């Protein structure tokens, strides 16, 4: 992982989030509070600007800057969760992408205390980590994340704002799982 590659990844993620902003917000309207698209867009726009302003020298610094920027710009549930993801990745950057993502994932679990099947971003991130740990490609990991996102549709949410809907949360994809699928798609497009 070199800093330029990671920066390209994050730029691509920012692009995808910006493009899908309204879709993410629409998903969050259905089972949440209609801000996931603008939250992620605000955060990733700030990340891209921060990385451009003072390009970090190494991979860990790119990830750390990304994490701190998300923590200070996003708020809501996704700010601490995505922020923690990147901060933990920064701490494990030396081992390569797969272990770093796994470390980030564990950070998300620790911060949010969600379990697989709770209808959260965990359900997209977990399968992607599993694929990578098993030696799969980034393209396969991105597919696993997308499948994980799709698998959240029938689930009843048990964490986050969607959990207040109970049974009524079933039938909609989770917004956070959807943005996480974009994160992996961006990785497949830029880091392969």
């Amino acid at each position, binding site marked *: 992982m070199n800093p330029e590659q990671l920066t390209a990844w994050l730029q691509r993620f920012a692009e995808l989030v910006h493009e899908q902003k309204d879709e993410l917000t629409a998903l969050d*309207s259905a089972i*949440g*509070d209609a801000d996931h698209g*603008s*939250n992620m867009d605000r955060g990733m726009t700030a990340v891209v600007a921060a990385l451009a302003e003072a390009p970090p020298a190494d991979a860990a610094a790119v990830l750390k800057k990304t994490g701190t920027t998300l923590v*200070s710009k*996003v708020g*809501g549930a996704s700010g601490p969760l995505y922020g923690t993801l990147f901060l933990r990745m920064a701490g494990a950057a030396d081992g390569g992408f797969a272990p770093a993502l796994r470390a980030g994932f564990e950070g998300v679990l620790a911060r949010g205390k969600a379990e697989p099947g709770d209808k959260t971003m965990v359900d997209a991130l977990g399968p992607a980590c599993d694929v990578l740990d098993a030696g799969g490609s980034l393209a396969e990991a991105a597919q696993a994340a997308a499948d994980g996102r799709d698998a959240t549709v029938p689930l009843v949410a048990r964490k986050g*704002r969607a959990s207040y809907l109970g049974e009524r949360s079933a039938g909609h994809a989770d917004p956070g799982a959807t943005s996480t699928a974009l994160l992996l798609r961006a990785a497949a497009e830029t880091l392969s």
Partner: protein
Amino acid sequence: MKKLINDPADVVADALRGMAAAHPRLRVDHENRVVFRGDAPVQGKVGLVSGGGSGHEPMHGGFVGPGMLDAACAGEVFTSPVPDQMVAATQGVDGGAGVLHIVKNYTGDVMNFEMAAELVAAESGTEVVTVVVDDDVAVTDSLYTAGRRGVGTTVLLEKIVGAAAEEGRPLAAVADLARRIDDSGRSMGVALTSCTVPAAGKPTFDLPEGEMEIGIGIHGEPGRRRVPLAPAREVAQMLVEPILADREFTDGVICFVNGLGGTPLLELYVVYAEVASILEKAGIGIARSLVGPYMTSLEMAGCSVTLLQADDELLRLWDAPVDTPGLRWGA
């Protein structure tokens, strides 16, 4: 979307400029989006910090001032503020007696305040205690949810705990009181229309003519169930019944009928009349009342009912002077 705003991206910053201009006795940190008491930090007094997404005004920024909060962090609309804001607020109100974080129970708010507390602990000697408000009986089974949401009780708690802090009580006692109030308050809300988040540009949900959403939250998140529109008499029943089923209330409650933003005060009084008569029949006397839009959900039409079991101490603290833009008496 019809709103009196400039750019949706600027709405919080613009409103904070308005607050600063309208209330010279507050100090607004525009960089961090924190509303402070003008005289913060008050030496020797426990500092009270709250905050949350914007769109609920007057909560929380309108509850900053003597007798209530020392600082409030304003997040984006319906989005928890970020830890940096909470750190700035905490440091700005630390008068040496520690700081209480009053957090409504939403995943985002809880996690951001948690990270802020970690940062404060790492950076400074300020003692921080966190109290989470979770009073919404619409959320039935907390085992399979993120727990109950923090709604109307928050307003009553901030007022009462604010009075206790003003008296000079120590942090542990102030926090205990806050937990006791959270324990003694229950709320339930109803929406007749959706709100529209400025950045989203369209209504969060679609609520057809003739239907209402029972058990609504304050962020346009859907409620417990959708039912046909009913007379205020029946709506009051649908709100009060689950509250009374959830906790025993005895004589002497604070009864709070809160407007969600788009419902006129005229209607809130109609609802209040019905709530009061249900309570009367149940033998639960109302010791104090509050009627108005205090914890709103942008322009959503609807209301919530909060009952807080009071006692002489709580009533004394409720009656104590408060001097904020949103709640003011005795000062």
